[in-house]
């Protein structure tokens, strides 16, 4: 289920948030090329991220990744942020989606997303409908969070030996893990990997 604007207004009312319609419009309508010329209609400026992007992504990763993943923050820094550092348009979309998620957290829970408890972070994503949303780079906020935050994290994780091993494959697609593993009956010990990193390029 995807959240509609009506769903969001109801949700905001339910948590007692005091917001104007313009805020919701600004948050839940995807940005358009002509958004700037619309400034007089009650919309607000695009929300900004109150924490470092890495903090937010790592906080989301704690929710999206299974429990017990070691070295998560370094992984996010290296393989999530690092992967797209030379893709400015993508990075801009990621930054915007992260800022939108952070703004929702501040509105609904009164704190930056990264500062919320993990179970609250998880619930917030599910309340937004992100778990069932299609990933759409220029879609609704829910769809953009699915695309830029959740699926970005999932892609990096499950295309790495680290994530793959949890589900039985040490050389998942997207990872250049060589041509030995497909010949083997079972997973090699993880120490046999030439590195544990995701998406080694």
């Amino acid at each position: 289920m995807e959240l509609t604007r009506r769903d969001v207004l109801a949700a905001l009312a339910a948590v007692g948030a005091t917001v104007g319609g313009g805020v919701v419009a600004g948050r839940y309508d995807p940005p358009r090329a002509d958004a700037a010329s619309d400034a007089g209609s009650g919309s607000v400026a695009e929300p900004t991220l109150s924490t470092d992007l890495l903090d937010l992504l790592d906080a989301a990763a704690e929710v999206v990744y299974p429990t017990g993943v070691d070295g998560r923050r370094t992984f996010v820094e290296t393989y999530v942020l690092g992967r797209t550092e030379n893709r400015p348009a993508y990075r801009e979309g990621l930054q915007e989606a992260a800022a939108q998620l952070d703004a929702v957290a501040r509105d609904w829970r009164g704190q930056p997303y990264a500062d919320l408890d993990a179970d609250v972070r998880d619930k917030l994503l599910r309340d937004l409908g992100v778990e069932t949303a299609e990933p759409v780079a220029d879609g609704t906020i829910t769809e953009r969070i699915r695309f830029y935050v959740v699926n970005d994290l999932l892609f990096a994780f499950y295309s790495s030996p680290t994530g793959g091993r949890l589900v039985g494959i040490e050389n998942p697609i997207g990872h250049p893990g060589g041509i030995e593993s497909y010949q083997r009956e079972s997973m090699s010990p993880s120490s046999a990997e030439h590195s544990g990193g995701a998406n080694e390029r």
Partner: protein
Amino acid sequence: MSADGGSGGSDGGVGDGVDRTPSPRADVCVVGSGPAGALVAHRLADEGANVVVLEAGPRFEFAERLEQQEQHIRRGMEDPWEMGGPRDAYSTEGRHYPLNAARVKGVGGSTLHWQGMVMRLHERDFEMQTRYGVGTDWPIDYDDLQSYYADAERAFGVAGAMDNPYAPPREEPFPLPAFPPSYSDSLFAEACERLEIDMHSVPNARNSEPYDDRAPCLGYGTCKPICPSGAKYTAESHVAKAEAAGARVIDRVPVQRLEHDDAGETIDAAVYATPDGTEHRQTAGQFVLACGGVENARLLLLSASEQYPDGLANSSGAVGRFFMDHLFAGAGGRLDEPTRQNHVGFNTSETHQFYDDTEPVEGLKLEFLNYAGPSPVIEALGAETWGDELVEQLNESYGTHVAVGGLVEQLPDAENRITLDPDRRDDHGNPVPHVEWSLGERTERAIRRANEIQHAILEELGASIEWTVGPEATGPAYHQMGTTRMGSDPERSVVDADGRAHDLSNLWIVGSSVFPTGGAMNPTLTIAALSLRAAEALSASLSDC
């Protein structure tokens, strides 16, 4: 309209500063830069000919392959090869043919997205009429093509082994060692041995070790449609060799039509358009059509003139007709043990044991898949949960799948055809291709036979069969063939055995559009062999000039 050097400047409005204006009259103009066009361009340029290649699509930079791979794996991203939209519009009739999933326009053509399986046709494929009274004979036989097959294998860098008892004669080992069999092949091997089915290696146009300045396979697992390592052969390789030998390759310039001389005996020019809509005329002494099984026919039809109202090279009426593809047949299920799938994106074992059977006479070959069932990362990206729940879901869905796929021959049928759609136009105002394609009862019967064998193997293996792709669910293997068939009779075919048009002495056609029948082998090695043979004949005609 012909407005050379028009409003968009010399780069045709692309903005990259690349000159897209025509060259002075060339020796050879090649339309299309897939494997057929690239090999011809390279051979002729290497022999000193002045060659211009016109490519409808763009150049895709190799440095972008990892990003393209991400586009492929992740939902919600653009097609990594940018197919679709007004440039590539088409219509279909009969069974839907997903044309834009079946081809790529770009420097390298459809080898950019192909999987890279490269088998030779069998001897019988060249004489289906003589042997079985079906289809039509080729004007050449296997012996005529054998040395060119070897040449093509060297060009691609084919990894293979001489362990296939059903393969046609070959004179030398493959250029590269075969990829070792997969673990799941070993599971199939026991079942097949009990059923007396011979498994053997798969010839792959993929480096099992470094070859021709390209890397060995690194196991990215996304061969089709993206190989980020460069181990998979693409025709970019021979485009680069052609350019190094002096050929000029112009991208983003779809050819609109060919223009013939007043006598209607030769082609004068290929008229191409740049993205800004400007048309240019590339003149040349010889013209080679190499733009795929649909666009080769379409371009001839688009080039209709007062003298040739039914299109060029079409006095036989065969242009666009006899459109064929291979049909996918498959079955799969699960075992109660790990099967180690989706590590690599290619297959390592198949069987040609049933290929030459006579009941039915349609060829069929079976492949033991190394990518059965879901890939965890792709499933995760579409899952409706995350965290520990997602791991649980992926552990349930991944790990025990097996599948046997296969290709089934479709015999030529004049009613399966490419025409011009009078009601739809592309981005340059040309009628789009209209694909009329259906399966006959013969083909459906052959698919059912493939399913029977596949089920027998899976049952012997102890698998629970969960899916079958039979006559209802089947689809094309994206091998467009037959639309400019070769033959010795000008009244029944478009080109001769060398690929030269019967009607126009300086027009050559290469690619799978010239196949009179299609067999059931992936066609690209045969495309390459025929192209090398055509290049030799064309070269001889250049030296005669």
